[in-house]
């Protein structure tokens, strides 16, 4: 073989702890992928605001290391650490180096053009200057929010049905958003599903993600055999690569659903990925039946089977959007069943609220000049956080310094707010940065709120149900 085993094994050289990368200081490696090594890092103490393009860090939560509960409207992690994905290009032939640069460009492009709470946040990209580590000098570095673990790690420790349901719903939210934005992930697998510090899903690794042109796009012939749809093995390789459609992600989702509810066991039998791919092929060609593990609960088994429909055409009916709707219906049905003593009351309360709103509108048909300020109540779309009153940092929400700048670490004030808190809003900005919440509601509307002391910050309108008619902010 032509490869020098020493240079290929063990991933080569690592950045030592303490190494400075832009505004960040390396803590240590936390993972390795095909082309990249991921490190934990923290903002360097002497990194002044604005010196490196990443800006200064503003606030943190308490010392317990919990992150905010919301992906979009959040800061970086509570302990101030981030993940650095380092993609070395030194030592690669020019064509490969271009491939790596292209993968990094895609990740950055997707993060820029289609941010979402269920996609891992990209905080910055930079080029590594490491003259004393020639193998790493010139590497591309993606600075990302740090996750707690991957779904693969979580599967190893066991996932109960409720947790699994939450994770699959999260993946569906991310996929629905990607597909709606015209992207296909193409490499969905538990390794690429991160679990944020808040316990919520963050899809990651968009190095192979492709943008669709019409109904399909083309990708380099790469993938993870266990998650490739059966038609991929027959798809011809054209000038631009292989044809990819959104149903490829749906197939992969079917495999992931099975793994989540069957303790990590893939749905197709076989000792190696190759054997399992062959079994999937056999199933797709109608020579074998789909035999899903009996421990997968019935609702999820049906869902997985739909995702694993044998052909693109049969799978096309099951979009991420429609699957998500089914999951939400299933979950809210379960919630109602569990809350059996008072389902009627809950519905009644809802109806009362709606009536009250109508009455209010009727009583004040002419609002007159907008008021100087209004009380708004914070709304956290995370249902688990709505009942809690312990002000757990996990359920806290962030407020922005500047509603026109990306909602990143350095653009969040130290003060956190919780569901049902009331804030004094003094004006509104209808054209801020668009914010999408966990329920996929989007809004560019922001309220300026007063904080204790002579300070203000900005709350995105998706974080409250109130819509006071305030004057426009100057």
């Amino acid at each position, binding site marked *: *073989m*032509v*490869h020098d085993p020493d240079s*290929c*094994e*063990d*991933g*080569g050289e690592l950045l030592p702890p303490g190494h400075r990368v832009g505004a960040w200081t390396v803590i240590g490696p936390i*993972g*390795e*992928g*095909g*082309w990249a*090594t991921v490190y934990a890092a923290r903002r360097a103490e002497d990194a002044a605001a604005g010196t490196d393009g990443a800006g200064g860090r503003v606030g943190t939560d308490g010392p317990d290391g919990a992150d905010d509960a919301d992906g979009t409207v959040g800061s970086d992690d509570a302990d101030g650490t981030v993940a650095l994905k380092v993609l070395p290009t030194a030592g*690669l*032939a020019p*064509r*490969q180096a271009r*491939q790596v640069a292209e993968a990094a460009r895609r990740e950055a492009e997707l993060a820029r053009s289609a941010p979402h709470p269920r996609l891992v946040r990209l905080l910055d990209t930079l080029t590594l200057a490491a003259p004393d580590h020639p193998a790493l000098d010139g590497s591309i570095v993606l600075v990302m929010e740090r996750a707690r673990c991957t779904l*693969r790690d979580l599967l190893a420790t066991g996932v109960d049905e409720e947790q699994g349901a939450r994770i699959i719903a999260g993946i569906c939210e991310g996929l629905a958003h990607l597909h709606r934005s015209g992207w296909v992930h193409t*490499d969905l*697998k*538990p*390794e690429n599903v991160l679990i944020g510090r808040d316990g919520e899903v963050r899809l990651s690794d968009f190095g*192979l993600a492709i943008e669709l042109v019409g109904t399909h796009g083309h990708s*380099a*012939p*790469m*993938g*993870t*055999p*266990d998650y*490739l749809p059966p038609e*991929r*093995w*027959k*798809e*011809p*390789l*054209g*000038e631009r*690569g*292989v044809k990819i459609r959104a149903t490829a992600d749906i197939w992969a989702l079917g495999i992931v659903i099975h793994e989540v509810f069957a303790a990590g066991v893939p749905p197709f039998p*076989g000792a*190696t*990925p*190759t*054997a399992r*791919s*062959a*079994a*999937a*092929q*056999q199933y797709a*060609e109608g*020579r*074998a039946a789909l035999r899903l593990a009996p421990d997968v609960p019935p609702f999820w088994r049906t869902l997985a089977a739909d995702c694993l429909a044998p052909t693109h055409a049969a799978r096309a009916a099951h979009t991420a959007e429609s699957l998500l709707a089914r999951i939400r219906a299933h979950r809210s049905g379960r919630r109602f069943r569990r809350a059996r003593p008072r389902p009627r009351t809950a519905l009644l309360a809802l109806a009362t609220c709606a009536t009250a709103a109508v009455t209010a509108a009727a009583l004040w048909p002419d609002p007159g000049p907008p008021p100087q300020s209004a009380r708004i109540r914070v709304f956290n779309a995370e249902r688990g956080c709505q009942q809690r009153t312990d002000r757990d940092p996990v359920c806290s929400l962030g407020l922005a310094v500047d509603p026109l700048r990306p909602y990143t670490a350095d653009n969040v004030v130290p003060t956190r707010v919780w569901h049902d808190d009331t804030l004094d809003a003094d004006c509104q900005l209808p054209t801020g940065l668009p914010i999408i919440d966990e329920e996929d509601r989007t809004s560019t509307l922001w309220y300026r709120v007063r904080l204790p002391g002579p300070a203000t910050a900005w709350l995105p309108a998706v974080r409250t149900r109130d819509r006071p008619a305030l004057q426009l902010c100057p």
Partner: protein
Amino acid sequence: MSGILVHLPEGSGEAAVTLRLGPGERARFGRGSAGTPVELRLGDEAVSRLAGEIHATDDHWQLSNLSNTHAYLVENPEGAGEYLRVPPRRIGAPIPFEFSRVVLPSRRETPLSFQVFAPDHVYLDPHAHGGSWESRTMTAYSLDETATYFLVLVALCEPWLRDHSPAAVPTTPQVVARLRNHPACARLTARAVSSHLDYLADEKLRIELPDAGGRADRRNGKREAVVGLALKFGIVREEHLALLPRPEAAEPGR
């Protein structure tokens, strides 16, 4: 996983037969008769009516020897004499070769044989590292870098890899000449080079060819498409040039 390909060359008045078996599919071979149908008919008195069975499994295949008396040999034509002996009545012997020639005893001068190709063998990407290999993202088309077809591919790509900015892809005779000094290619013929090219384009990379022109155009188009895609997707890289024998023209001092 597209399965395996079984090819029986023409002989003794019978046309050549090519069967494609998907994973889990089987093909029986033997002399055959009205009562014992076979998918692969071998017209030789020395062969039983039902001599054996091929079963495509995972990325490889299994050979069952249904003869009571004869052992079959499975040779690896690229393995410098490497072969397996499958004894009588052995069921489901796994065959590890990508290329195999199954040899059955015959009363004729030349032994009776057919070929089996298993193009689905998977190789890890050379630069990949970290994590479990099972869930690693990899190139969906993996080539055996020690196989002759790979040498042919590297020879075809060589002008681009050496930045000669060539006008055209090397021709088949040029490839034969280029590989002549390689120990594995001393007896490589132009026809073999063409077969390797077809195998790469049709079975390994599954290249989509625009429908155009006659046979010669198509052959050239295939050659160009193979080179273009192999370079574009990094299947052949600069480091692979080391596999080729030294270029003669590069040593003007001698």
